[in-house]
């Protein structure tokens, strides 16, 4: 059956520095996000979720999956920060999993990508960042968690960078609630959208504790 999907990718930093509360909060956040989206019929019909986790390497922990079949992954934190591998994997997934418009097929909505990282990458990432910045295969929102994240580096991947200074469970929870609302708002848009042509999507304002990096 052919229908338009809203692909959503969550890139989760699972390096050693995320151990403890942060990784548990990410897991809880993804679980809460799934639960909340299941309460929105437009998200149920269109949102497809994928989780890409990265530590010393990157892997697609959950392939692009419709909401009703999505199982929140079990994540653990250890190792280094292979952000480059994660970005490369993201590029590959966007190419293979997302349908573009053609003369015969109505394509997916432009994907939403949420990237969370708390530190500097430990592999080669620049070329993949440049690729994403110039080609814009998705609407990417990068979130710098804590003091160790480099917002300038994230700015080389996407113009939309948020900063979460504190990495408390409350802040992660509020962040994932914002992600949920962003997905809902995007999945509810129907009909023509000038934002999609000029730039992409309009998202709700971030919660207290998370600021937009100018």
């Amino acid at each position, binding site marked *: 059956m052919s229908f338009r999907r809203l692909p959503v990718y969550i890139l989760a930093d699972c390096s050693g520095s995320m151990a403890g509360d942060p990784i548990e909060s990410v897991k809880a956040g993804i679980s809460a996000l799934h639960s909340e989206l299941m309460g929105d*019929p437009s998200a*149920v019909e269109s949102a497809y979720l994928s989780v890409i986790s990265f530590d010393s390497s990157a892997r697609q922990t959950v392939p692009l999956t419709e909401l009703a079949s999505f199982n929140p992954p079990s994540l653990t934190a250890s190792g280094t920060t292979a952000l480059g591998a994660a970005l490369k994997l993201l590029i590959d997934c966007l190419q293979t999993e997302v349908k573009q418009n053609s003369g015969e097929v109505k394509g997916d*909505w432009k994907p939403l990508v949420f990237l969370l990282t708390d530190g500097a990458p430990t592999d080669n990432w620049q070329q993949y960042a440049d690729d994403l910045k110039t080609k*814009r295969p998705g609407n*990417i929102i990068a979130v710098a968690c804590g003091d160790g994240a480099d917002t300038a580096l994230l700015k080389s991947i996407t113009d939309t960078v948020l900063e979460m200074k504190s990495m408390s469970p409350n802040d992660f929870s509020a962040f994932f609630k914002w992600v949920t609302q962003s997905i809902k708002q995007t999945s509810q848009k*129907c009909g023509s959208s000038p934002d*999609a042509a000029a*730039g992409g999507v309009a998202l709700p304002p971030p919660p207290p504790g998370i600021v937009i990096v100018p």
Partner: protein
Amino acid sequence: MADDIRIDCDQVSLETPGTGASAPTGQIPASSVPASNEVHPFAINAQAQVAKPDPASQVADAENAAPPLPGTLNLDQKDAIEGGGADPISEAPPSTTTTPPIVTPLKPASWGVVEPVGPWCPDGLETELGFEPNYQNEIKYTTEIDDQWRLAAASKRGRMHAHHGTFREDALSTIHTNSFSFLCVCDGAGSSKLSRIGSEFTAQFLCKLVKEELLSHEGEIMKCSRASLPGNLRAILHLCLDTVARKLVDLSVTAQMLPKDFRCTILTVLHYHHPTGGIFLFGNVGDGFIAVKRRGQSAERIGTSDSGAFSGEVTCFMPDPQVSEFYKTSLEENPPIPEDEVDSYILCTDGVEDPFFPIHRTIDKIYGQLTEGYKEPIADVTYPEGQEPSSIIHAASPGDELLKWLSYEKRGENDDRTIVFTYRKSLAEPPIVTPAMVEMTPEEASPALDTTALPPVVKSWAVFCSPQVIFAMIVGGLVIANAFLIGALLGFTIGSHSTPLAIPNGCNSPIGP
């Protein structure tokens, strides 16, 4: 290159996610209103929450399990953490049970139907519109245009707007005089706050203005040549659209908003009855489509849709600064079609285009459904059982049946839907059938001769006089008789003088210009 993402800091930050998109004043969050009994095939189960695992039992399990690794927390305990809540590990009372938690699988939510709340138009703006808006959730009507043409129109609020209690954003308007028909269908842009006003204003005001201009120039138009007719009509349509665009910008200023808050797409068809022959002109800005069914040919789409690489990426809307150029270009690039070539035509917003995509492959089947009724799904588009539509052209009320046709279902297709279907009345007329052409059974067509009541002499003749034998004898007799007649005529003419027949002037040339 412009940013892809706009974070709208004008919105009120939502404290309780799950209430849908940002809710302007007067809108009821969907989750707070009881849903109707409307059942959706993809999510028909009632909303359910995951049963939260008992923190107490989880603490007990943790105590019985292997000790956690240094620097980590027990995963089961942490699953119970709510954002902003207290740490259940430190506050949970000791448990005496070892029953594992029961987790109910999440059930997807179903669609609701909520009446729009609040005014369709902001205070003070309605008087500026200059017309009575049609903002009902559904529109359906039939128009007898003239003795040849009939129009059926329908528009339906989409499931998304119905769930969130917001207004339909598609709009349509159609006008008819003795010399022309003008049809306009518009679709409000989803992210524009007052696009419902933009689309309704554009459709109604454009029709009103086109009618005024065409009537005021009717004398000149009727006298112009066939060659100059399309250009003259295009100029008038273009001028009218420019005026509507300016008026819509003025309206936005009056409302203390931006022109982009009123964005919409446009589809137009002008059918002009000219002494040199009727003609159709087509214009479009944005997505949606116009299709024409020419006599004896397959249906075809007019022009192309502006929808970009990803779904819904329209590049120009009414009243953007470049709309004038876009519309003018479409009028020029969509070739005019002579009236006598056309059997029917339709205008549809993308609420119809998207489910039946790609239109160039499905348009013939769509026409089949409109003329003959639903037989099978097109492009995975289905109807609830028992609600399949019948033929529009043969319906007692074509507008009603067309609204029924708009009630199709397809996953992810929850936009407003609008279609205007204009067709020759002759398509709906049954073929003329004489009594002799009424279909008969083989026995009725060749009845056996009943000879039981006939005298024996006649009976014996009856064996040879079955209908088939009699027919063959008659034909044979006629052939023989004609042969004698032709021979007699030939014998007469050979012996007499003959003169050639006179052919009236022009009869040797083909009929027609």
